[in-house]
């Protein structure tokens, strides 16, 4: 299924604003991207960058008021999402586009058995009878690796651990075989070992079903191994957009570069201070006139504080919102080449004849 590379989702110039006491908050301000069938797109950003609101907008789930989709176009399979009636929209939500959230406890109904919650979806969207829906529920729980699925289907959400609840959420999301799965920080509330389980599960299910995935996260490590394309958001805007390999190899935006450098990296030497982006995330209600990142940017010059930066095309598939995008990009590529290849991280023990301390870089 992943062979046919048609465009599944196309978002153009999406703007979602919120009216607040502090004035208009431009939570999403001119976001555009495309998602091809079978691909995974990562949306990376800090809190308040607009990554979650972008995806709520796609499903028309932004609370109105105070929220408002001001302009833009979202085409799903060529269909204009914003032109659909509420009834037609309901047929897409949960069936053709499914979503999983960060906190599986608040997204499941605590008073309903897991089986019932799973059955509701297929009864509604696929017209299953109770018996069919029940079988499908058990089947889905087995698919997501729930041990003893038939018995555990009768349990209530509180009887499960965080990781198991997230599996239930994934089972629900995938039970109608959606064309698009939106995962909003799916592993943030989980321990690392459980995060690894869930990420592996999403990868495997994607391989089996060919579903396209949008993965929203603040963790650059998570997107590195999971995605084909990445969008980096800051202050409601797309700051950089590229294929995953290219973005990590040659970031063309000072913000992306700063984010990458501020993650402690095991191959970096100790004793050195960690790179830090100065300042605080912006107050989206009061953005400066020029580039929103300018007050924190180490490359900023006069022009950055004065003029809004252009969205520069750096490569076939690589754009960056920066006055100095080309320069930053060239420098990154150059640094990449001169750097030693990252130490391959394996867990095999050193050979017994070589003492462990010998392995210094």
């Amino acid at each position, binding site marked *: 299924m992943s062979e046919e590379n048609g465009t599944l989702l196309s978002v153009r110039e999406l703007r979602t604003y919120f009216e607040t006491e502090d004035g208009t908050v431009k939570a999403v301000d001119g976001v555009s991207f495309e998602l091809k069938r079978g691909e995974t797109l990562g949306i990376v950003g800090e809190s308040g960058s607009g990554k979650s609101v972008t995806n709520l907008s796609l499903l028309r789930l932004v609370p109105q008021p105070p929220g408002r989709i001001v302009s833009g176009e979202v085409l799903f399979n060529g269909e204009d999402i914003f032109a659909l009636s509420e009834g037609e929209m309901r047929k897409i939500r949960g069936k053709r586009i499914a979503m999983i959230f960060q906190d599986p406890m608040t997204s499941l109904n605590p008073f309903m058995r897991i089986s019932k919650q799973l059955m509701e979806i297929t009864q509604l969207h696929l017209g299953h009878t109770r018996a069919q829906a029940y079988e499908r529920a058990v089947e889905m729980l087995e698919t997501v690796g729930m041990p003893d699925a038939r018995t555990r289907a009768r349990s209530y959400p509180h009887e499960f651990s965080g990781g198991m609840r997230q599996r239930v959420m994934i089972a629900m999301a995938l039970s109608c075989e959606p064309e698009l799965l939106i995962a909003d920080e799916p592993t943030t509330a989980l321990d690392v070992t459980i995060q690894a389980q869930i990420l*592996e599960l999403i990868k495997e299910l994607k391989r089996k079903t060919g579903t396209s995935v949008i993965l929203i996260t*603040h963790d650059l490590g998570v997107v590195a191994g999971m995605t084909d394309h990445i969008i980096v958001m800051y202050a409601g805007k797309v700051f950089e957009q590229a294929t995953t390999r290219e973005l990590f190899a040659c970031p063309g935006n000072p913000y992306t570069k700063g984010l990458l450098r501020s993650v402690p990296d095991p191959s970096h030497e100790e004793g050195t201070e960690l790179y830090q*982006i100065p300042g605080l995330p912006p107050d989206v209600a009061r953005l400066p006139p020029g580039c929103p990142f300018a007050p924190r940017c180490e490359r900023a010059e006069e022009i950055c504080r004065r003029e809004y930066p252009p969205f520069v095309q750096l490569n076939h598939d690589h754009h960056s919102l920066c006055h100095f995008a080309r320069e930053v990009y060239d420098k990154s590529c150059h640094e990449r080449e001169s750097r030693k290849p990252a130490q391959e991280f394996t867990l095999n023990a050193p050979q017994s004849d070589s003492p462990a301390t010998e392995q210094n870089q």
Partner: protein
Amino acid sequence: MSSTPQEHRNAPLPPPVSAQNSSEGNDQVLIAIRDLKVHFDLGGGTLLERVAGGARVRRVVKAVDGVSIDIYEGETLGLVGESGCGKSTLGRAVLRLTEPTSGQVLFNNRDLARLSKAEMRGERKNLQMIFQDPYASLNPRMTVGQIIAEPIETFRLARGKETDDRVRDLMETVGLSPRFIKRYPHEFSGGQRQRIGIARALAARPKFIVADEPISALDVSIQAQIMNLMERLQRERNLTYLFISHDLRAIRHVADRVAVMYLGKLVEIADAKVAYDEPLMPYTKALISAVPVPDPEVEIARKRIVLEGDVPSAINPPSGCPFHTRCPYRIEACREVVPPLVEIKPKHFAACIRISPEQPYIEQVAPGDAPGLSSTGRVIAR
């Protein structure tokens, strides 16, 4: 010291580890934790269970179950583990914010666990804490100035104008403008609030700070700022940290040594770099392997060790080695024998019966073998 692990159960408390550890420059022990236990009694089971099982059904959470470790002056000891492993409880028990059930916490030749409330209060100026949630750990009705001044006033370290000067100094030290002294916590962002929490912890000029997940509630770009701030303060003020975190990347960066905790017990202790690059315990390996690396080339190439299942409940922890239910290397004996924490390599401790100083690499141990059962390693905790 050669004997089977079970015999160690009744062995006397081990001597301070530092006694044999004089190779490094700074090996002054600041805090020595000995066989510390924190058990929470949840009361009996259901009525029926109590009738049937008598006293046995009392449910006890062994949040911290026999932890022994030294914390050296000026170091950062990283404490890692998954949620529910007891790492926060251990941190709180050291400061007696949670009462230990048994065991010792030696500081300045005094056992903190046995001090009276009043004596403990006197020691608290040396022992401070930074909390995870900067939203919940600051009183919303106090101004920043009042929050930071409180420890100074409580311990009568200064009065009047001098207090005010100290507060302003502290604010500058942690990177907050003293202009904000009259503001309330809600007017600050998460990162700034964590700075307020750090200033408050520093106000009493402590020697030792327990930092319980100080960066996990913060944005990525802010985490680096707080880690750098904490490292700078440590250099300037010769602080000793117990840095509790589930984030192995952060621990690898800030800690000198790492202790890995699983279901109330320490299972591996080593220098941070060694623990990260050459872990001995299957659990530590899996933990590290689970952390995604922000580099697609590495991510795609590497094989991740994915553990089966969840962390078992601390109410009825597994018998023997607590990790045996998820361990890919388990053998029959792991169900029965509680592995002692043994010095497998110099200054590198691990609790696994399947390895020993003679055979430290579990991959190379013959299937079914348990060299740890007959090894002669130095044991620091059972």
